[in-house]
């Protein structure tokens, strides 16, 4: 595997362990056999306080390409999140996650997670990715809010 990617991710893991925003988690995926995969992380972001999303913990995976950090990781919500900018596959549509847009190699897992947390309450109506949330968000904000509340209830924090 790409040595550079590995070194970079080892360092990111180290920095994350030393200090990370409260309520978040991010770590390499663990396999049944006791190994872990540094190229595939499991992460979660808490909904921001004083927003609709408060009280939820939303899980996602980061799949890092061999040429990371030249290319961004692929980020998918598991399970799929009800959000205008999340594709039905769970993949997050965000400019900083797109190599052709705002991704740059100095961005780290930490930046991405904070960016995604921010996206939760600030959906971008110009990049619709999922039909239902997009429709509700643009047409019936009350219904959208009610639906988000269900989503928060379905994603309780790990006790």
């Amino acid at each position: 595997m790409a040595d550079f990617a590995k070194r970079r991710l080892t360092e990111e893991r180290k920095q994350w362990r030393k200090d990370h925003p409260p309520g978040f988690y991010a770590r390499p995926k663990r396999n049944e056999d006791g190994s872990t995969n540094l190229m595939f992380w499991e992460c979660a972001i808490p909904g921001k306080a004083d927003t609709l999303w408060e009280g939820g913990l939303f899980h996602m995976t980061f799949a890092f390409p061999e040429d990371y950090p030249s290319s961004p990781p692929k980020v998918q919500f598991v399970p799929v999140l009800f959000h205008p900018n999340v594709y039905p596959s769970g993949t997050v549509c965000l400019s900083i996650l797109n190599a052709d847009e705002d991704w740059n190699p100095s961005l780290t897992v930490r930046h991405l997670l904070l960016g995604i947390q921010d996206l939760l309450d600030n959906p971008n109506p110009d990049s619709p990715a999922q039909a239902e949330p997009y429709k509700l968000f643009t047409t019936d904000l009350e219904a959208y809010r009610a639906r988000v509340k269900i989503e928060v209830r379905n994603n309780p924090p790990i006790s």
Partner: protein
Amino acid sequence: MTARYAHLERSLGADLFAQVRSCKVLVVGSGGIGVEILKNLVMSGFGDIEIVDLDTIDVSNLNRQFLFRSKHVGMSKSEVAREVALQFNPDAKIVAHHGNVKEERFGVQFISKFDIVLNALDNVGARQHVNRLCLAAKKPLIDAGTQGYLGQTNIHVGRETACFDCEPKTENKRTFAICTIRSTPDKPVHCIVWAKELFKLMFGNAEESMLSGTEPDEDIADANKEESADPDANATNADAPSSAEIKEDQNKEKEIRSQIVEAVASRPSGDELDKDETVRAYARRVFDAVFDHEIRFKLQLRNGYKGANKRPTPLTFEEASSKADEDASGQQAGGLKDQRIMSLKECTDMFVDSVVTLLGPERRGSLGDMVFDKDDALTLRFVTAASNLRCHCFNIERKSLWDTKGIAGNIIHAIATTNAIVAGLQTLEAIKILAALKRVPVANATWRAPSASAEDTDAASPALTANSTAVWVAREPVGRGYLLQATGLPPPNPKCFSCGNALVTLSVDTSKFTFGDLIDRVLKGRLGVNLPSIMLDASELYAEGDGLDEDEVEFFEANKPKALADCPAGGIKEGTIVDVEDFSQDMKFKVLVHQKVYDAEENPDLFEVGGEEPVAKPDAKEDSEEKASADKAESSSDAPVRTQEVEAIMSTGKDGEELVAVASTVVSSSKRPREDGEKDHESEGSKRSKTDDEGAAAVVVSEIDLAGGAKASGDDDGDDDDVICID
């Protein structure tokens, strides 16, 4: 103000003195060496000092850590040292940190704010840690260590000279064959080790005691095998026991062992423990089992003490307690009580009394968990009594409580004078480095890229350490009669796992050695990694330290019992390379694994580190390589490329006020190329220096004693806690 520094300004010159005043120095440790350094620094004008020490002051420190007085006992070493040193020179700025240098707050960033770091530590682990921090922060480190009369100072400057880890540290642990302990002791230490095992058997974790098994020593059987296989070696081979006889012996052996174990197990319990008579009778049973029956039985064994010069004598309780002493009493009239050798009767009484007290109401609660502790007077009394009784049986000289404490606790007594000498040398070296820092801005000269070869190092650009020397303090005059011997600094070892691009080779039986062994015994035990993370390809197999969730810790723990070959992500086998990183330090290295099966007899560790990778000696000229090999234990300098003479003149100054160790003269050559034919001659295994007016450095250490004679001479009593290791 001027008066205080006038002499310094004159001897150092205005420029250098200004630098001394302004530079930032970190002293790690304020114990034996640390207090000496601190005194030297404030008296030599150093104005900005920080000290770190995690310890508090103990009574046993007072004889040599002269900044401390009995009123300070229990207080923080670093803080008291600061306070007292400020009285020497109120003009200095000293910051004291009470804490372990391995804590995160003393990380690379912390180290980075200093110009020079001085190590005054008593253990290899912490010295390795500071070494790595200094490498990461690119700061010169002046290390020192003492061990009794021996000592040394060494300068580690990044990639310019060898770092602390360039020379592998050998563990100085003593091991004895089991049969020496169980059957054939010939030194007091063997009996002391045995007595500790007996303690474990009687009061501690009996299963862990080497006296607990009833199986005969394998090595006895083995010894016989060898004997019969080699007719030339033994003319009386015809006497070699037949296998039936060996069998018989083994059965007897087994019987004896069972008897001891039974005697120990016959310990009274419940209310019986409160009856003094019952407990005394028990002590007596054990006494007879180990000092009489066992020896008596063994004398009957065919292979028992055949051919032994001195056959052991069994000792019955009756005999021991009635004997008014013939051999020991009067032998040491006077002297301190604990340093006296006890008579047989005294030992016997002490044996019984200590058993009674150990089983008494205060101690009995921890029966089965008791651990011998040299500082626990009761356990020490038991071990002293038992070992002396055994010594008597085997005609070995007996030892006093005091000596037993030293041997049982592996104590090497620290000597104040040695500490003072190395601390003085460290201060001198610090001044030399400062002088060099002035000439050679760090950014330009040193900290070359790791790939820079040793040749480059020697070439044109001046080095920080051009005038620096490592100095060894010897017990006996070496060479031309000097106790101090300076050597050049060896270049870095490119294979060093701390400062080079190292690949540590680990030879081990990957089908048996567990992942946990790799972590605890190799990475932590041998290589001094504090919080290892282990990566195998893209798989993190282990991590510890902060920032891990509980389930992650469990997950990693689950890998520990696995054999290396059965580790996840493909296993660790012949040729596997794992990446190791220390979460607490800026250190990464690779470990290359070789499959090799070890015989536990030959190598009880069952692993070897760097075993197949020859230690590289970059740029070493042949002559220097040869002479290094015959060097004495005190020298770990592997390629002393050039020696200089250091003349140490200890003189008493006139000014009875202050204690100073200052360089009056520092003359040294510029670093010469090494192939100048300068060759050192061996003299009784030590290096003799060669005079060469160009290469000689004369260092005059003047020492002015305090009016009150504050400096303790070290080899007296009271000091037992500090073992200062040299590598």
